[in-house]
């Protein structure tokens, strides 16, 4: 049990008495009350837990808190806070992408990271970046379209 410092959505947190093996996912959900990041598999197979670590997409279910000490974490809550939607969220909303919505925070975080890295991704690049995010409701076709919409020059 130890003390950990991390910055989540621009806010610094000091966590006491947390087992260092605790995955970031459960620190976010249960200790910081940020429920937007979801649990789907616990083994980095479904992508529902995707957050950004220093801007890169990571599966928070498989990242122990000890490994993220002092680093910048961005969750779905931090993407737009109470302000205007991020353009990826706006594209998701315009195209009515969501169905049950459980996978979508992870989908959005993966898509935001993709577009940051590759502003105009090809179909193959979209597939590679998004293959790790499962959707049981089958919204994949609209996810593709929303990524392309968000990639359009405004």
């Amino acid at each position, binding site marked *: 049990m130890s003390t950990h410092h991390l910055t989540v959505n621009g806010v610094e947190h000091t966590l006491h008495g947390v087992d260092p093996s605790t995955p970031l996912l459960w620190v976010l959900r249960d200790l910081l009350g940020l429920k937007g990041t979801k649990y789907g598999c616990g083994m980095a197979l479904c992508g529902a837990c995707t957050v950004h670590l220093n801007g890169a997409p990571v599966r928070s279910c498989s990242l122990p808190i000890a490994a993220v000490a002092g680093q910048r974490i961005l969750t779905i*809550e931090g*993407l737009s806070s109470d302000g205007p939607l991020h353009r990826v969220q706006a594209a998701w909303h315009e195209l*009515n992408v969501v169905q049950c919505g459980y996978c979508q925070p992870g989908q959005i975080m993966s898509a935001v990271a993709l577009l940051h890295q590759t502003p105009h991704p090809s179909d193959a690049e979209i597939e590679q970046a998004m293959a790790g995010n499962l959707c*049981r409701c089958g919204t994949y076709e609209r996810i593709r379209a929303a990524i392309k919409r968000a990639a359009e020059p405004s």
Partner: protein
Amino acid sequence: MNWATVRSLPNVFTPTRREFLRAGAGVAAGLLIGFRIGPRARAATPAQDEPPSRFSPNAFVRITPDGKVTVVSKFIEMGQGVFTAVAACVAEELDADWADVSVEHSPTGPEFAHPWFGFQMTGGSSSVVTSHRAMREAGAAARAMIVAAAAARWDLPGESLRTESSSVFAPDGRRASYGELCLAASALPVPGAVRLKDTSAFRLLGQPLPRVDSLDKVRGRGVFGIDVDLPGLLTAVLVRPPDFGGRLKTFDAASARLIPGVRRIALAGDGVAVLATDFWSARRGAELLRVDWHPGPLAALDSSTQRAEFATRIQGAGTVAKESGQVEDAFAAAPMQFEAEYEYPYVAHACLEPVNATAHVKPDGSVEVWAPTQVPDADRAAAARVAGVNPDRVALHVTLAGGSFGRKSGEDFVPLAVELSRVAGAPVKLVWRREDDMRGGFYRPRTLVRLRVGCDSRGHPVSWESRVASASITKNTTFGPAIFRDGIDHAQIDSFSRLSFPVEHQRHTWHMMPDGVPVLAWRDPGPVIACFATETLLDEVAVGSGLDPFDCRLGLHAHRPRAIKVLQTLRERSGWGVCPPGRYQGVAFRDGGSTIVGEVVELSIDDTGEIRVHHVTLVVDCGFVINPDGVRAQMMSGVIFGLSAALREEITFRGGQVVQSNFHDYPILRLPDAPPVDVHIIPSDAPPGGVGEPSTSLIAPAVANAVFRATGRRLRSLPLRSPS
């Protein structure tokens, strides 16, 4: 208190005295007025009138002075878009501004019962079908009262006033918003009868609408069952027997208790639970539990040897569900004979949100439950039984569901959470780990089907015999009395026995397997089994009689103009008969009465035998379309869900245990393998038909039929695997 629980949990509706009096004034035809009259409501009813803070003419709509319109849905939002569809019905007649509309799930109560069952439920693609009129009436009643309030304020006749986008307009230019008028409206009598708009006047219904839950969900603010949080909440992980029917022998929790967050160990159902301050501690504790089990009757269950039990059962007489003519003689005399067996494995629902429930058994004995459930009344009754109280002491809040597809009607998760809370004396959230969800049942049942069809020389079926061997999915559920009758599970056999085309000689028999592996309805439960068999068999009939598969089905449905239209549109829009070399097409079709769907797939098969679906064309007639975008979304959803199972999914057993545990060995379809689905909706004035499920059942037979064209081989078992 966590923001998620404060912001998004539905409030228990407590009527003011005025609303209470109104309920006693008589309920008009077509207008639902519902109140929960229970101990809590009575305690809240004041001795004298208190000024109303909102306008609630009925149980389904509420307007507050800030202009917000809240629609109350008795159906759970599990992705199918029912919140949006129900709200559109209310908002249309109310003439509300769509931007002001939000939806919450109802409390439990008799006014929220499903008309088919007499209890509250979501499922069977029946929500909009059974409620659209009542929801429109609820909105129309609210509008009428708002107009009456404006008329009184302006001293004008109500008929001279116009409504649009949550405002009332007078001919002289005066206007008032619903927010401004709603409290005055709440003082007026609820109308006895309401007139509904003509469809030509619709502004919302029939238009693609932004989903009401989209903004919250893209912001990550949707509160699913697994997100519920409460002060003092313990999270529980339940360790259960490795084989279904196994029993607890002994356990040693010494190591588990050493995890700092672990608070207690408790028995619930057939397992041992670790209760902790947070999920990760509970999970670590569960992994450190040492448990010994008594093996149960299924401890030797093995998928390869289980087949023989089904084969034996299907040979027997079974129970006749429907019979006409002389099927044996007609088959024997038929110039063309087709006979085949079809096999279906257990499959999991595998919702992204695993099964979960939160319960709080309080010191005074009352109970509060939060769960993503399709059957709130059944779960409330079970919670009451476990807590030893009357159901009216149980408040059950239905959350969003991160997918359900039938799984969250299992009636299994709420009572376990209640038991744990009762024992722990604290609120408890019970969460299935993915492994628990994958291995704990309840599955689409393993099934063996035998079809025997005799056709005349033109290829028209003259005899049709179905045998269906499966365990029952409804017998042990709250749906049992309605659906499981005379030893027959109608949810499973009716899709076989209700052919959509005339056949003179028929026999359909149900060969029930004993209970064992827990099974349950899985999206489109009857058709998803029946259509794979019937639509691949019809393809064989077409080929055998030299008919194009479309012509075969057109001939069978000559009596059904709506079916003809779907088939003709599908043939045209899919480019049937024209595809590039190396690609093959297959078709499947179902006339479900109020909803008719046809699908054409285009696929290729690589050298390793892997099937790749490149494109799906889908045509649907679902009667009057409430929300075309919702229809498209559900058609696409069912195709992808069905395709994933058709190509990839099976739950198998070895040594009594489920082999699969997570998404590495239960691989569901991913984005790169998901084909585009072109949906064409046939305009119709017929009553709305359901759309949540029907597209699911046709993708497997369409694929199998295309594989035949590619390889000459008929695939009759799922998942589909082509020989390389």
